[in-house]
């Protein structure tokens, strides 16, 4: 039989389960009688410690208040299901709750669905989206997980480049005014990467200078494209752009110097860039007016119906199309720059091939009549040259980008009628770039008549457009009126020549083929290049450069008709909606410490967001402790995180646990990271006595 210890014996006597007297108890443990006797006598003195009983009325009153508080707390979070369950529940002990109905699981399930939804929504969010700050916050979290300085630079640069894509898309949608969050975040990532890069030395500094240099060039290119749009932006956005341009310039210069000192050719750096950067090195072309449907006088619509090339692109698209009137002549359709998304070709055009001259992706399957050239997230470096066949009018040529074949920028989801008549179709209200009001026809190129030849093959006009005076006839751009006006092919086909196979592949214009010098001063020349697209599309020419293309000088007597815009999908400039809120709008109101459970201390920092939108911010909370008898504060613990602060007052909270014993005072510092922002970091600190009785 196991021997009873004196500890067990004492415990039995104190519990006295059989309600025995002291002597009876001691008789049960005779071997311990001498030791237990005094201890039981001492224990009897504890009866003096019994507190006065609380009167029942007051005890019940306390219970009423406690239960009322519980009911109030329950009401705050009650859901109907809980209410039903509560009514059904008797005062008996509650039944076990199934695991899947336990609050933890329910909350976890709801949270998982919410997180998935928000993540999905934020992944492709643009700055005018409610989820954009969620996207930025997610990026910020991933940034915090990045380790080495080099990795941080790469990550910051990558995020900066992502912001450039966001900004370009916003500009193409004429929504730059709503893009302040993207501007701020770009500025933050750029300046952060530069700041870290400045601390590097040796080979890592040179290596990472390549990345930063390329990114800075991309940034400068992108920001240069904003030049004409800046005037209409809110002041806060303009200031951000201005300060960011300074940072960009500095980054560009410094990295270039480092690369040059290392005998690295800057051009080679740009040549070797990743495909996902390439599109950023091409100027952004702002949203242009849709090209109206042609209704050129003196020509007849094609009998077999016009082809329509519809571009629903969010990115710049260049369309070069030569269509014969039969169904077999190939039509070249080029898209540039690299990234074309959601560009559809319809109807009557059939894609027969898609040679990609400088890319890695094939996007247009043969045989499509309405085809997405690239997926929504595809990036196609280089130039796409799909060849399509179809029926329609002879030549379609849409705008030009500087130094490239040309581009037609369209707004998101805006159908873009290419034209239904012959001639060269030139949208002339492209806001940017200035050099691209029209594309000259290649030297020697001949407009194809729009009438339907009897033999169903394209006809070549017997004459060409007359070059403007003073222009070399061998390199004569097709004169184009800088309005939404179709230059009609003024000729009468007299023969049915074979269709020249090279007319629709337009070479990259060289310097000599840029729009001819205007000589006819009588042509009205609107000079305000920043006039936003006029919703009514009144065909008032708004060239973005100062050159005045000559009036077409057809040799026949047909008069160019005033184009009658039929397309009603003119992008209507939306009212500028200011979404202004940055880190600088945050104000830390206070920092509070309270005693938490299990020896932890809880802290909370109410933050007032005085901006007009939610702000995602990184913060750091540092707990300094002063030990009893210690001479000063030492850092006890640090926490960091990211919080989205909605407009108004909200709080960042946290807990510090595992604190040492003997803490006399706490000092808590809470600071919001304002790196890259033109304001001191919002911060607050507080010092309190340790009232939490923290034990190890």
């Amino acid at each position, binding site marked *: 039989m196991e021997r009873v210890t004196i500890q067990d014996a004492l415990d039995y006597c*104190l519990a006295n389960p059989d309600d025995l007297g002291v002597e009876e108890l001691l008789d049960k443990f005779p071997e311990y009688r001498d030791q237990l006797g005094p201890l039981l006598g001492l*224990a009897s003195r504890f009866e003096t410690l019994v507190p006065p009983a*609380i009167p029942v009325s007051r005890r019940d009153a306390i219970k009423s208040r*406690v239960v009322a508080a519980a009911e109030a707390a*329950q009401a705050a979070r009650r859901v109907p299901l809980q209410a039903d369950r509560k009514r059904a529940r008797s005062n008996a002990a509650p039944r076990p709750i199934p695991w899947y109905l336990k609050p933890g699981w329910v909350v976890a399930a709801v949270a998982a669905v919410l997180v998935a939804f928000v993540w999905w929504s934020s992944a492709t969010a643009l700055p005018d989206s409610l989820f954009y700050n969620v996207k930025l916050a997610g990026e910020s979290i991933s940034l915090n997980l990045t380790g080495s300085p080099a990795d941080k630079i790469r990550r910051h640069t990558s995020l900066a480049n992502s912001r450039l894509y966001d900004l370009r898309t916003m500009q193409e949608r004429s929504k730059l005014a709503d893009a302040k969050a993207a501007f701020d975040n770009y500025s933050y990532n750029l300046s952060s990467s530069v700041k870290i890069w400045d601390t590097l030395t040796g080979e890592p500094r040179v290596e990472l200078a390549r990345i930063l240099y390329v990114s800075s060039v991309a940034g400068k290119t992108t920001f240069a494209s904003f030049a004409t749009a800046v005037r209409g932006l809110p002041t806060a956005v303009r200031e951000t752009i201005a300060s960011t341009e300074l940072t960009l310039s500095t980054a560009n210069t410094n990295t270039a110097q480092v690369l040059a000192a290392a005998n690295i050719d800057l051009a080679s750096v740009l040549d070797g860039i990743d495909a996902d950067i390439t599109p950023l090195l091409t100027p952004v072309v702002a949203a242009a007016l849709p090209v109206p449907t042609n209704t050129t006088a003196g020509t007849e619509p094609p009998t077999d119906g016009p082809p329509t090339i519809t571009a629903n692109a969010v990115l710049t698209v260049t369309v070069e199309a030569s269509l014969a009137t039969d169904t077999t002549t190939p039509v070249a359709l080029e898209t540039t720059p690299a990234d074309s998304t959601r560009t559809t070709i319809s109807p009557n055009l059939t894609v027969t091939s898609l040679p990609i001259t400088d890319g890695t992706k094939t996007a247009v399957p043969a045989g499509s009549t309405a085809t997405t050239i690239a997926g929504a997230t595809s990036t196609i470096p280089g130039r796409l040259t799909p060849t399509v066949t179809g029926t329609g009018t002879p030549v379609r040529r849409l705008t030009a980008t500087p130094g490239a074949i040309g581009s037609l920028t369209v707004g998101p989801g805006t159908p873009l009628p290419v034209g239904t008549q012959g001639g060269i179709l030139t949208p002339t209200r492209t806001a940017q770039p200035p050099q691209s009001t029209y594309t000259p026809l290649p030297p020697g190129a001949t407009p194809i008549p729009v009438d339907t030849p009897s033999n169903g093959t394209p006809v070549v006009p017997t004459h060409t457009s007359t070059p403007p005076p003073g222009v070399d006839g061998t390199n004569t751009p097709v004169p184009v009126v800088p309005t939404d006006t179709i230059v009609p092919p003024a000729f009468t086909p007299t023969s049915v020549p074979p269709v020249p196979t090279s007319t629709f592949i337009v070479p990259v214009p060289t310097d000599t083929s840029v729009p001819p010098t205007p000589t006819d001063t009588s042509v009205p020349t609107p000079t305000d290049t920043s006039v936003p697209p006029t919703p009514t599309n009144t065909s008032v020419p708004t060239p973005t450069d100062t050159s005045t293309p000559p009036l077409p000088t057809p040799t026949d007597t047909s008069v160019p008709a005033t184009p009658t815009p039929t397309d009603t999908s003119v992008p209507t400039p939306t009212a500028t909606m200011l979404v202004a809120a940055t880190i600088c709008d945050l104000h830390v109101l206070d920092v509070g410490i309270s*005693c938490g459970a299990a020896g932890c201390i809880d802290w909370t920092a109410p933050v007032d967001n005085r901006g007009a939108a939610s702000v995602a911010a990184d913060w750091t909370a540092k707990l300094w402790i002063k030990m009893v008898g210690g001479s000063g504060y030492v850092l006890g613990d640090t926490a960091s995180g990211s919080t989205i602060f909605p407009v108004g007052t909200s709080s960042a909270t946290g807990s510090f646990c595992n604190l040492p014993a003997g803490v006399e005072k706490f000092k808590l510092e809470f600071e919001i990271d304002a790196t890259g922002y033109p304001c001191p970091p919002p911060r607050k600190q507080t010092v309190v006595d340790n009232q*939490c009785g923290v034990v190890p």
Partner: protein
Amino acid sequence: MAQPDEEHLWVESARAGSPEAIGWLYERYFDRIYKYIYIKLGDPTEAEDLSEQVFLKMIESVSTFQWQGSTFASWLYRIAHNQVVDSLRRNTRRPQVPLEPVSDFLPSERDDPHILAEQRDSRDHLLEAISDLTELQAQVIMLKFGSGLSTAEIAAVMERTEGAVKALQYSGLQNLQKKMILKGYAPEV
């Protein structure tokens, strides 16, 4: 798998926000918490106030209570302990004259003032001697004789084995006896 005991079910219900469960836990623990605080502070009025605060704090935090490595009783006593520490700190910073027991705590005419004085002295002597014990010994003595918890309950509150509690209880009473004798509060055995 063992069936959860009744308290476990009530605590789970309280975590889900049930006022009935809060009421049940109040009935189960209020008197013990009140005694525990009273012994620590020696002021019935403040002990009453703080006991109420403990339960209000419990309502705020019970949804975050985790069973892992802890019992509800230990968690609740931790709240009570923090309340006591806060109160002591406040009183240290703002010295107060403790309210003399009034109204319901007033001794009845039947109470002999001499007896009351002796009881007060005895309590003060005990508390003084207890304050000289080790932290763990003092905690066991307080919970055993102040709150009236069983050994098993003390073990749960202190997150120790029953054997350890019994050992602390024995050594605590032994030390207390010695200190009482040394201070002249108890006759030498």
